[in-house]
């Protein structure tokens, strides 16, 4: 018999309650139960980082966590990053201006990882940014444009432009 549990959590500011199978990963729950398909799955073993979401503002691999473990938590996915009016936030805009995404598959994980990082480091060096995303694999960009975008976004944040 497949075991199920009822969980309550907040996703991108909205409360939700669901009966889920205990073996379901958080990534599958977000994608297939809540239809938040912005969170991608790239390796299912916690290496590539594309499934990264924020749980209580801390980055977490949604492929390595079960949905039931998110009970009572507040989750932010890539769908929850834009400004309240739906426009791109500073980091997203910087990604666009610096061509920091090509296929876009790793982008949600990059954005969530860097959102957490910039919250704690408003004036990062290039090396610090590279270290921060060293658990996120991008096969397209070669990272250079992601680093440039992050430096730009950090500067804009410091100057109160976004």
């Amino acid at each position, binding site marked *: 018999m497949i075991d199920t549990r009822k969980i309550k959590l907040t996703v991108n500011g909205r409360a939700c309650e669901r009966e889920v199978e205990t073996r379901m990963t958080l990534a599958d729950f977000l994608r297939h139960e809540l239809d938040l398909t912005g969170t991608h799955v790239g390796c299912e073993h916690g290496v590539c980082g594309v499934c990264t979401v924020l749980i209580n503002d801390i980055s977490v691999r949604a492929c390595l966590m079960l949905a039931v473990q998110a009970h009572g938590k507040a989750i932010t996915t890539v769908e929850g990053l834009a400004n309240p009016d739906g426009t*791109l936030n500073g980091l*997203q805009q910087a990604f666009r201006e610096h*061509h920091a995404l*090509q*296929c876009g598959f790793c*982008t949600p994980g990059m954005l969530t990882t860097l959102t957490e990082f910039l919250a704690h480091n408003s004036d990062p060096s290039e090396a610090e940014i590279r270290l921060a995303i060293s658990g996120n*694999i991008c096969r397209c960009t*070669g*990272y250079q444009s992601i680093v440039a975008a992050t430096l730009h976004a950090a500067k804009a944040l410091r100057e109160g432009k976004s």
Partner: protein
Amino acid sequence: MGAKWLGARVLRKEDPALLTGNGCYVDDIKLPGMLHAVVLRSPHPHAGIRGIDKARALALPGVHAVVTHADLPESMRNQRVPLLVPNPAIKQVYMPYCLAKDEACFVGDPIAIVVADNRYIAEDAASLVEIDFELLASVSDCAAALAKGAPTSHRDANPALGNLGALIPLSVGNVEVAFASAAHIFREQIFLHRGGAFFMECRGMIAAPDPVQEALTIYVSSQGPHRHKRVLLDLLDWGDHQLRIITPDVGGGFGPKGSFYAEYGALAATAMLLRRPVKWIEDRQENFLSTQQERDQYWDLEIAVDRDAKILGIRGKLIHDSGAYMPWGVVLPWISATTVPGPYVIPAYQIDVHCVVTNKVPTSPVRGGGRPEAVVVMERLVDRVARELKLDRTEVRRRNFIQPTQMPYNVGIIFRDGRPVTYDSGDYPMAQAKALAFVNHNDFLKRQIEARKHGRYIGLGLANAVEATGLGPYESATVRVSTSGKITVYTGATPQGQSHKTTLAQIAADQLGCTPDDIAVVTADTAATGLGVGSFAARTAVNAGNSVHLASIQAAEKIRQFAAQMMEVSEGDIVLEDGFAKVAGADLKRSFREIAARAAGMPGFSMKGGPEPGLEGMSHFTPDRSTYSNGTHIAEVEVDIETGHLKILRYVVMHDCGTVINPMVVEGQVVGGVIHGIGNAFFERMMYDELANPISTHFGDYLLPLATDSPNIEILHMETPSPLNPLGIKGAGEGGTIPAIATLISAVENALEPFGIKISEAPISAARIVELLGDAAKGRTR
């Protein structure tokens, strides 16, 4: 009309959706009644299949089917996946059935499709399918596979040929004479390994049967749905109207998503059997086991030079690992062999290419498609000549460059399209000279000597490459102004991150007097475009770009014709601007919306005598032959001789891809390409044991370059337009990768020069550096 958007740094149309989680990749699609499939694959490199017991799997609640070869429709049982690129060099054709019939030939060969209500149950059920295997001897290393008495990778191998799948003899000039007259002959034996594509989005497909008709709509993560359609029509024995294939957003392709995989046929058949949509998403371990890779090549070459280091000839042999099947025939090794001459004058060249069938994942081109290996080989030979003749490496290259005055330059060798390799344009000596000046080469030599005094080993590597791009046959483009006035471009090009929707809109906008934002670009839908080839081999900018250009010119002409009729002016007086056809110098204009309505006609009113109905243009631009991009890469590395750690201190790219559509996009392609090359040079190794069991099956064992491994790439541009197409485009998708391995290997060898170490392999890991250093490294180990 002047080019306003072509060449501009336009931000991407693709980005807003992808940055907010609103992209649509295949696994994001959810259809009513959809079931979920797992592909059950062979756990053995080579085995006979004596029987399959589905009973326990089928008994599991939520399981709908276990489909094996015997369950496939007759047309699929009776034929193997067709080979789309036949070649007389192929001696034994090996292609798979959609599901293994009675023999599995690599770990990962599909045997059954297990379908259930969800993926979790399907995986449970797959583990309950019992297969009675008869283990057979297997073939792992492609060089060993050619030895007398080696086991064969397929049971029905021709005994006279063994594992030899194809033999390609290529030659130009008189090698015998060249070698007989040479002052020096040097031999290099080089082993090259390239792993896989490892796009971040694994493969995936949904097959959805039409609820009413005998027909399927398929969504597949691919590099071109039209070729998939062609194969599936054969396998299903269907007509054009029964199959529509759409490729949605794709999370990277790099080559292997261009191939048709056996399971695609089986999944289509399964959906038809169940009359329900069936989704299959490859997981990452499966990606290691089943997605095609590039893998192993053994090169054994000799170079003949005269007293002045001028190259007289090259001859030798290449052994290429084709894997268990030949989805791309001999395309990959053929490209390797014909890329060797590169930017140098090679009067005589002769090579025998042996394509070996093994019990490993089949191979296909991966970003660069066999060219990076060829560049390593050529540049290693040139470095060897320089070392032996005590000349500067850059000088040997200078003496052998094809000069711009020799363009177009016929290399003489026959490319895979059956035509001689003929470079269209380019200034190779200038590319190297500019790159060397930029890095201040002479200053480096001083710094190197200084560093060595302090026990630091820095090295400089360089490589030149010429890359065949923009291969035909064509790409389709239709440009249509709808009766709402909105403009849509339809094309068979299939982006996987290359920004086609932006760059193709830029090209159309120039002709239609609007902005790229006014133009929707619809890619990769077989119902929207009848013909299509797809995106691979740096071909889209040339083929689709020029098709869009020509189709837009036609559409613009139609707009002017109808507008002229409507406003009773001459066509020549009309300019297209901001979505209007305006009469120059008069306050007279018509919107695209009004003109399109006129062009669509009114019921009952004849259009005889006027322009053809409809505001659209269509083109299938077919290039006469390949264009050739070129580049010079220079890298400075530091090797820690205690740990073997390799650090890239600087990386400079001089790149010429002809006319640039969008410099931001080209730079993105180049930088990403170089980092891919760094992976191939230092990290990426798909390992197998001696029985062909895969050993590296996850990202813990198979290392991809991370942000902390990647330097900033400095890019210099030259822009030599190609004379072979209206826009002068060449292609930029692979130019970053192609010279990168050669450059880095050369830099590492240069750094380790004091130890007399020669590097004749790639990838080269830190551990391997320590091994090569031997006592020199150990002596420093604490």
